[in-house]
């Protein structure tokens, strides 16, 4: 009897931790029946590329959410990156490093601004990153007069390089995940992030530099958005103001589906990877099933609800 109960508890615990991977597995099984086309090399390649683009921002978004924050300005940073790369390099391959460096510096400044507003001015993250987004968009419009100029260097198209379903964006996503996973789990900075997110007052009282940690996280999130922006720009090959539409909210959705909580301190990159894949697989399935592309919004919403509902249930009962 006791054993049975224990077993029951263990199962629920397991669901809480690995639930999202279980969901991913079930989704793949379902997909293999109703949309077997998903597993064709070309489809997989596109799906993974899109996952990488979303996944790279989602790394930053996850870290921001771990310190009980939110970053709605990442989409703006991506568009800024594509404009800066085109403007600075103007199509010349040898200027790619310089143009990326400029984008990184501007991105870091945006993240720094977010962090300052949130820590020193105590502005809620939602509002701080939102007004920052408006500022970035406004600056872009003022500088480009609505018509982006410049050219994307051809060499940046290297991100289109792929081998089967493997591609450079996928590799970058993997490497960045590995780096930040190690940072979160094995360095003192990573532990500080979790500490600040779970209990800010306790973290401050135990002498952690709360403000510094938060600001660094926002700067990192912006820099990751720049990285995603560089890849997206190289892939598209021209400057597009609408290049990042929806990516900001999707990155939040991926983190949430992966089990990262809005109130901070709970979650991590492994969950987010699964969250990204679930969202992208579902979006691809919508297309493969010939459904109206807009229905993917409905599905995303339902998946978010289902995910948080399950996490809530598992937490309550575990």
């Amino acid at each position: 009897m006791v054993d049975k109960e224990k077993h029951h508890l263990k199962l629920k615990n397991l669901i809480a931790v690995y639930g999202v991977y279980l969901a991913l597995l079930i989704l793949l099984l379902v997909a293999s029946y109703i949309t077997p086309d998903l597993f064709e090399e070309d489809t997989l390649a596109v799906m993974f590329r899109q996952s990488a683009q979303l996944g790279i921002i989602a790394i930053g978004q996850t870290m921001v959410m771990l310190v009980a924050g939110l970053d709605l300005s990442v989409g703006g940073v991506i568009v800024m990156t594509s404009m800066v790369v085109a403007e600075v390099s103007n199509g010349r391959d040898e200027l790619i490093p310089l143009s990326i460096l400029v984008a990184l510096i501007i991105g870091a400044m945006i993240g720094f601004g977010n962090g300052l507003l949130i820590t020193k001015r105590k502005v809620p993250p939602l509002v701080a990153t939102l007004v920052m987004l408006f500022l970035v968009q406004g600056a872009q419009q003022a500088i480009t007069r609505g018509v982006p100029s410049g050219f994307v260097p051809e060499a940046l198209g290297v991100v289109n390089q792929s081998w089967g379903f493997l591609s450079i964006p996928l590799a970058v996503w993997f490497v960045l995940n590995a780096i930040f996973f190690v940072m979160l789990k094995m360095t003192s900075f990573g532990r500080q992030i979790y500490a600040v997110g779970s209990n800010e007052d306790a973290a401050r009282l135990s002498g952690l530099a709360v403000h510094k940690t938060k600001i660094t996280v926002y700067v990192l999130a912006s820099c990751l958005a720049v990285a995603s922006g560089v890849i997206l720009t190289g892939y598209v090959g021209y400057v597009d103001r609408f290049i990042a539409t929806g990516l900001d909210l999707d990155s939040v959705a991926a983190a949430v589906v992966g089990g990262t909580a809005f109130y901070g301190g709970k979650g991590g990159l492994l969950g987010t990877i699964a969250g990204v894949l679930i969202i992208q697989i579902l979006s691809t399935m919508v297309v493969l099933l010939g459904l109206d592309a807009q229905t993917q919004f409905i599905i995303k919403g339902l998946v978010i609800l289902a995910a948080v509902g399950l996490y809530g249930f598992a937490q309550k009962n575990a």
Partner: protein
Amino acid sequence: MKQLKGNLLQKHAVVLVVYGLVFVLITVGAIYSERFLSVRNLTNVFRQAAYLGTAALGEMLVILTAGIDLSIGSLVKLSVLVSAILMDGNPDNVLMAVSLTLALGLSVGLIHAFFINELNLSPFVVTFASLFILQGISLTITTKPIGRSSKEFLLLYSQKFFEVPVIVYFFGLLTLLIAFLLRMTVFGKYIYAVGGNLTVAELSGVPVKKVRYGVYGLCSLLAAVTGLLWLMRMGVGDPVIGKELELNAIIAVVIGGTSLFGGRGTVSGVIGGVLLLTFTDNLLVVLGVNQFVSGLIKGLIFVGAVALYKPNKGFYGSSI
């Protein structure tokens, strides 16, 4: 006495700053443009303020309970489409279309509250999911303008009474109603209590769940009303309407001194925030500022307004 004065000043610091900023904008407008202070332009500004303001007042009620509603932009979009389709240009359908749209709004809000109350989910997550779902439903219905307003309904937009658009009267009345609700009724006191300290509110017998049904219901209802106002203005169901409205509404509410942590905020502050946003837009147009530069100026004003407040004092701290 002196201290009392200081407290009073501190208490109302946010409202003073917001209206101070509005005053600066009006002064700049009056100096640099002859058209700005004309009755025509001012009534126009207030009519525009009604659109953001109606949604912002609803958002404020939710935020006062330490909640948030991220879905109102998507709901406004859906309301415009549904009401336009139901009305279909026929005056006989107006009553039916309006009541069904309002019912739709109310039910969405009650569903939000149900998920938050009964399933213990955070308001952020519930309305974040709802944002996607409502947007998905809207865009599945149509991605092109659809349906038609009846002529009489459309005329309400330009209808004036003593030179003032009827929409402005409506918004004024709504503002007074919400202020009355918050200051004079038990429900209003409950709203502040739930947002101020949930545990204390629960222990002192405040019906927390009912309060949530109330505020989320009202918030979504007002979003549906905003959708109807847009139908009056556009004459068709345009799926572009409502994009990022929730974000502007939240900015107006927060700039107006309402704490996102709940329990603190005033109607006058929110109206100040709405006027600040609306006057900024209007001024940039009236002064003929290049449309590409105006986005930058707007961004600077927002960041400035948000950064102006001192931490720990006045702003997110004490402003009932």
